[in-house]
């Protein structure tokens, strides 16, 4: 030991005796904020969490996290209109993370590798009837069976999938993908009875001695519009056309096909018609492109494939090979008004794509049930007015998408589970939203959105091959790593590094950090330099 001169020479690191934490007027606090993607996901996916695993290349972990909420990632990765990407904060930097394409990649990986789902709760002895094997019914069945309940699905049609099969064309959703994901759910022990139409729900419940029911029959009845037509005019509806694509006899639409409507279904029909050999596929829509309910990327793809669209037009009359169309104009409030100007369109067939209604006949005689605007009313717990009967998907008031339907299934399953157990299901309170203003975007490396490979244009105009290609592993990883991890620590070590007082304790991989309040002076650098907004400065008491 040195004989250290008094006071002049000091022992190393001895300043630990000086607790500078009492300088603080504000204290940093770690928190988790709600990422906008999660917030926007109708299926209630924890997108950021599964992207986190995907970022490190652990796709199975990512997929397992994903299917905690959604049993159909390969389907969803193709057909979801991804409101998550619309909400994604990265959109304000360069372009949104391609969440949907990563989801599809994970779903495809699972199918390719044969990853299996596993039930997670002990059997309860309860038996639930699910009516309809569409996205909502399948989702509910999946969650219920994982919660330990026995589930039987009654499906009126010959195949499972509902609108995923009969409403979405193959070029958007290859059937082998759908079949694989449905089978995986059935492998959990869900009983599927096809061609089993439920005429009276209460009868079916009693007959099967079911403890609860989830109704998810969808909306399959095409809406009609009155169009004066000659006897020889060929008028079909979109549901009919798309459904017949799944059967033996393909619809005979002719060379010139006109589709009437402005939703995604209208686009699907027009693109299907093109693939069936129509030389002209024309969509007639009474308003403008901006007002069109169909998603813009679908419109764009359709236009690229040669589909034509007549904006601001209504069909006044249908003849054998001609249609009379009236031009419209938008008034101040954006509604189309007739102009009195007419023109004639050549058409071998007219397909009406004006929306669908729900067949509610199975509910006749069920007491306490409320129906409004043609759909069944449900409470926040997805239960109808009749105790034990829950409903979701297209037959309840909501946006009619696969994603919403899957979300309904999950939500309903949780409430059904609670109802069966005689408990209350209380969702966890949501964290505050991690808006863009909470981020320090400087830290994110510049990286453009990965452009999904798009099938050769010629090829997709004549076949039903899938239009959107998938990501390969390299670009899926790249895309996943574009995630900003808004609102949730991703262990970038910034707080640990930027603290001038070494007052951040690093706990090692997966264990995040904590603040050493003995030394933290409350400068706020950790919070300011946290890329993802996972630290908040709170005022100190007194």
């Amino acid at each position, binding site marked *: 030991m040195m004989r250290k001169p008094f006071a002049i020479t000091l022992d190393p690191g001895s*300043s630990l005796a000086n607790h500078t934490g009492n300088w603080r007027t504000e204290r940093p606090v770690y928190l988790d904020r709600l990422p906008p993607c999660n917030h926007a996901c109708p299926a209630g996916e924890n997108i950021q969490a599964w992207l986190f695993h995907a970022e490190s290349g652990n796709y199975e972990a990512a997929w397992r996290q994903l299917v905690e909420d959604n049993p159909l990632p390969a389907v969803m990765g193709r057909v979801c209109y991804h409101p998550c990407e619309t909400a994604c904060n990265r959109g304000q930097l360069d372009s949104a993370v391609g969440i949907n394409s990563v989801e599809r990649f994970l779903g495809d990986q699972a199918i390719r590798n044969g990853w299996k789902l596993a039930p997670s709760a002990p059997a309860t002895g309860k038996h639930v009837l699910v009516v309809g094997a569409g996205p909502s019914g399948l989702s509910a069945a999946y969650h219920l069976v994982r919660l330990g309940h026995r589930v039987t699905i009654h499906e009126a049609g010959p195949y499972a999938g509902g609108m995923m099969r009969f409403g979405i064309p193959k070029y958007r959703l290859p059937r082998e993908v759908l079949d694989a994901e449905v089978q995986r759910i059935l492998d959990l022990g869900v009983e599927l009875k096809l061609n089993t139409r439920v005429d009276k729900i209460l009868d079916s419940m009693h007959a099967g001695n079911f403890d609860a029911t989830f109704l998810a029959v969808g909306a399959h009845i095409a809406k009609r519009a009155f169009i004066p037509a000659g006897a020889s005019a060929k008028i079909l509806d979109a549901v009919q056309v798309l459904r017949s694509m799944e059967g033996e006899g393909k619809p005979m639409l002719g060379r010139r096909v006109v589709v009437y409507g402005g939703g995604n279904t209208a686009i699907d029909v027009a693109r299907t018609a093109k693939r069936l050999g129509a030389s002209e596929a024309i969509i007639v829509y009474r308003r403008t492109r901006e007002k069109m309910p169909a998603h813009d990327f679908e419109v764009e793809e359709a236009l690229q494939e040669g589909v034509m669209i007549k904006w601001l037009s209504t069909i006044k009359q249908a003849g054998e090979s001609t249609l009379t169309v009236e031009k419209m104009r938008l008034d101040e409030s954006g509604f189309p008004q007739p102009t009195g100007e007419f023109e004639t369109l050549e058409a071998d067939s007219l397909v009406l794509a004006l929306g669908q209604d729900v067949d509610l006949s199975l509910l006749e005689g069920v007491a306490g049930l409320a129906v409004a605007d043609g759909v069944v009313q449900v409470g926040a717990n997805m239960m109808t007015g009749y105790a034990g009967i829950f409903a979701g998907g297209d037959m309840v008031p909501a946006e009619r998408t696969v994603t919403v339907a899957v979300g309904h299934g999950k939500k309903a399953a949780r409430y059904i589970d609670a109802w069966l157990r005689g408990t209350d299901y209380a969702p966890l309170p949501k964290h505050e939203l991690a808006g863009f203003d909470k981020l320090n975007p400087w830290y994110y490396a510049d990286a453009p959105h990965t452009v999904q490979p798009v099938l050769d244009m010629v090829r997709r105009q004549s076949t039903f091959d899938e239009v959107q290609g998938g990501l390969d592993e390299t670009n899926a990883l790249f895309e996943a*790593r574009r995630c900003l991890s808004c609102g949730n620590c991703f262990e970038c070590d910034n707080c640990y590094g930027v603290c001038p007082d070494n007052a951040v304790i690093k706990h090692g991989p997966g264990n995040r950090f904590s603040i050493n309040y003995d030394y933290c002076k409350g400068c706020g*650098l950790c919070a300011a330099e946290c890329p993802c907004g996972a630290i908040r400065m709170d005022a100190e008491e007194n």
Partner: protein
Amino acid sequence: MSYQPIKFYQTGTFTVGNRLLEPEDRSVQANMRRTNSLNSGHRACQGCGEALGARYAIDAAMSATDNQLIAVNATGCLEVFSTPYPETSWQIPWIHSLFGNTAAVATGIAAALKIKAIKGGNDRVRVIAQGGDGGTTDIGFGCLSGMFERNDDVLYICYDNEGYMNTGVQRSSATPPAARTATTMAVGEQPGNVFGQGKNLPLIAMAHGIPYVATATVADLHDLEAKVTRAMQIHGARYIHIFVPCPLGWGSASNDTIRLARLAKETGLFPVFEAEHGEVTAVSKIRRPLPVDDYLKLQRRFAHLFGARPRTDVIARIQAQADRNIRKYQLLQEAPQ
């Protein structure tokens, strides 16, 4: 740029760490076992850029030398806040002698180590001298220049906070034009510091032809660490000039320290580069070009330039300095091909 940036791993090499990077590509500061050469309990102000810069630099040097390091410290904030009797924050062998002799003390240590090595002692110990801008560009300049000229085996690190902060924010030869200090008050026709000729220590260091000169900021840790590491791989006189914002002296928010360092670089006011034997070998390009206003407005020392009657003429002169730096050091990225 002094290191190979990772193009895209979520945050690439911008953040301190990155769980997706290989461990060898992560910073010293990300390491759970970093030395914390400057320990907790020091008395630096909240958000002190110098405390941060010193730990960044010395930890990196410790890592580069396998902890075989001795540091000499000039009088100033860093010395005062780190070693008030009876406690020191330093975990390394450290000496403070005077304000103006730091480089010379380091020369003496290096000489002693050389002889000890010849006599069979530890031949791996290296020396760092460190001080603020006052101790470097003003009072310590003579000793520093002597050390450079003799090419003594010392890395000198200047933590530049652009003034005498320890004594109460007076002007140094590193104080920028128009900045208010206690000796260049924001009064009169030309408020704040004069537009002098400047005293660019990195360029002066380069004029000595020494093996290595670099500038860095506390906003780019990977760059800073790479430069310290590079410097420790070289023998002879080396100089690193680190830009360290001072919340107290600049009148900035304590949580803006790193942001200000980033803005100083992004506006072009503080060029970040490295040079060997008197020639610039690399510059850190500006990533998001910004006007100097963005930097100046965050600091009360420049508040007199804005306010009710903004001094656009003065701001324009400062912008011209930034533009000159951008031209001189070619700080802008080439347009993508």
